[in-house]
């Protein structure tokens, strides 16, 4: 163990304060009795009650949840397929170009992604609503899924699939019975990543949402333009909770999978 020097301690503290102080303040003030956001007037959970009774928030939350579940599921299917082809197809012409194009949306400014999707939807005459948000979220979260899944597939022993074929599987069966169960942890953490990304996306959603469908981040954004209310603090705290649970679950799943794999490799080394 390396000792924590005063320098290390200070940098650690500064770093974490920088990252989490705003959120901590938000969470503390969500329990504020007062209607004034910045003046502490005692502990209360009444704003949480207000959030739960607010129809507009609830319907926005319901839209957000549906968008997140559907888009992350589609993104997981498409992203896994893309990862599989890019890892397995070997060196076909334009492979580098394709894999580059898969990763490009990761670094593309969201504003540009949102704007181009908006232009596309207007161009093909698609009414903006929940469906267009799902399409948009699928588009950008698919890349994340494909990155997560392909990193698992790279270390996947291809002879396992050959063995399945050799024992009488069709290529589809070999994927379903052998490949998928083995890469499942990566697929699940890819799904969770896509889910949380969709849950808190504001920029792309505001480009592609219509009057018929508003997501929670858009709702929050539009209501704080009228002034920050403690209600928003409570709502944000709830969202922080959901996202935290999602991220922690995803990392636990992938951590466990790595540990198990390491244990298997260790066991394999022993004669």
């Amino acid at each position, binding site marked *: 163990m390396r000792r924590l020097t005063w320098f290390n301690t200070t940098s650690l503290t500064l770093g974490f304060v920088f990252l989490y102080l705003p959120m901590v303040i938000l969470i503390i003030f969500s329990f504020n009795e007062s209607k004034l956001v910045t003046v502490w007037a005692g502990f209360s959970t009444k704003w949480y009650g207000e959030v739960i009774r607010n129809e507009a928030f609830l319907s926005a939350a319901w839209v957000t949840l549906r968008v997140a579940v559907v888009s992350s599921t589609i993104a997981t299917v498409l992203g896994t397929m893309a990862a599989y082809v890019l890892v397995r197809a070997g060196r076909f012409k334009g492979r580098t170009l394709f894999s580059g194009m898969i990763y490009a949306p990761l670094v593309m400014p969201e504003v540009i992604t949102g704007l181009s999707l908006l232009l596309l939807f207007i161009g093909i005459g698609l009414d903006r609503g929940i469906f267009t948000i799902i399409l948009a979220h699928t588009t950008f979260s698919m890349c994340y899924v494909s990155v997560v899944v392909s990193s698992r597939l790279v270390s996947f022993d291809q002879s396992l699939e050959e*063995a399945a074929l*050799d024992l009488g599987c069709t290529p589809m*069966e070999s994927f379903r019975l052998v490949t998928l*169960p083995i890469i499942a942890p990566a697929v699940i953490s890819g799904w969770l990543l896509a889910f949380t990304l969709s849950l808190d996306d504001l920029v792309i959603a505001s480009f592609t949402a219509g009057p018929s469908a508003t997501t929670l981040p858009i709702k929050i954004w539009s209501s704080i333009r009228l002034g920050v209310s403690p209600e928003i603090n409570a709502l944000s705290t709830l969202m922080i909770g959901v996202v935290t649970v999602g991220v922690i679950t995803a990392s636990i799943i992938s951590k466990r999978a790595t540990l198990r794999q390491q244990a298997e490799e260790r*066991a*394999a080394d*022993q004669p």
Partner: protein
Amino acid sequence: MNQTVFAPWEDPAAKPLIQFKNVTKRYGDFTAIDNQSFDIYEQEFFALLGPSGCGKTTMMRMLAGFETPTEGTILLGGEDIAPIPPNKRAVNMMFQSYALFPHLSIWENIAFGLRRDKKPNDEIQARVEEMLKLTRLTQFAKRKPHQISGGQRQRVALARSLAKAPKLLLLDEPLGALDAKLRQDTQFELMDIQEKTGTTFVIVTHDQEEAMTVASRVAVMDHGQIIQAAPPAQIYEAPNSVYVADFIGDVTIIEGAVTAKDNGYDIAFAEGQSVYAESTLNLTNGQTGYIAIRPEKVAISSEKPERVRNAVQGKIIDIAYLGNLSTYYVELPNGQTVKSQTANTRRLSRRSFTWEDEVWLSWTDTAGILLER
């Protein structure tokens, strides 16, 4: 006693199980298999032996169906297998990495292939139990592959590939991952199982000892071609080329111009010096010939032996002591090194020869094999 020797390759009436007919496999400009034709017979234990990159794995993968020949046909039981996908072939393969399914138990691994055939449950049950018993794995049935040892994993892979009772079993370096001691035991076990099940085995290996031990015939490969395919004893005692002689076991090669004499040839390897070997080859005088002599067939002595045609004098430059055997590297005046191997029947302290000793090496007229190339 009138015991029939297992040698279907010498019987013109025998029908081969596998026939390669002018098979060529190319990857771009690289020719992995170069116009090969040969037969493998039922119940054979056929070894493909060669250095890495010689094409032996490609041969096997073409039999399994993971590769298709660029030219030529492969027949299995008289039927062209090119259009049959791997999952429809009566061929199973044991992979070098074993490729056990890590998410399934040993039992489920072995049952995997049977399940794909939609066999009734009790039949699967019985077959898996039989395979577990054959490979002595019954007590590990419920474990996962990562909970058993390397040797046990090797047996699971074997049981899984044998479970469907294939006509042909392919083994890709099956013992490569085992340590030397376990390897030896497993070789005999493999032969035992092959005999019990009567399955035709094709094994790919780069380990010549392994090939010699298990196989009924060994095919020595180099650069996409089978140089010689013959029973182990013939490969060792009567190699058809310098490549095979050199690849299998230890050998001394002496090169020189030949002159016909008696039932063989004199090979002049140095000024005024020649050795003699009996041979049925038909060579013209003055042509270059090669004599391959196994070290254990060369006697070493301090005095010139009498009445032996092949006797040369030299100096010991190296001794490889292997415990049971010692190999002496003797340098002749012309720089040629000849190896002589003797069993160490005496304790080391009483050994007769040491470094720098002048010794005589001798061998019989039939000990050396004359080769053209």
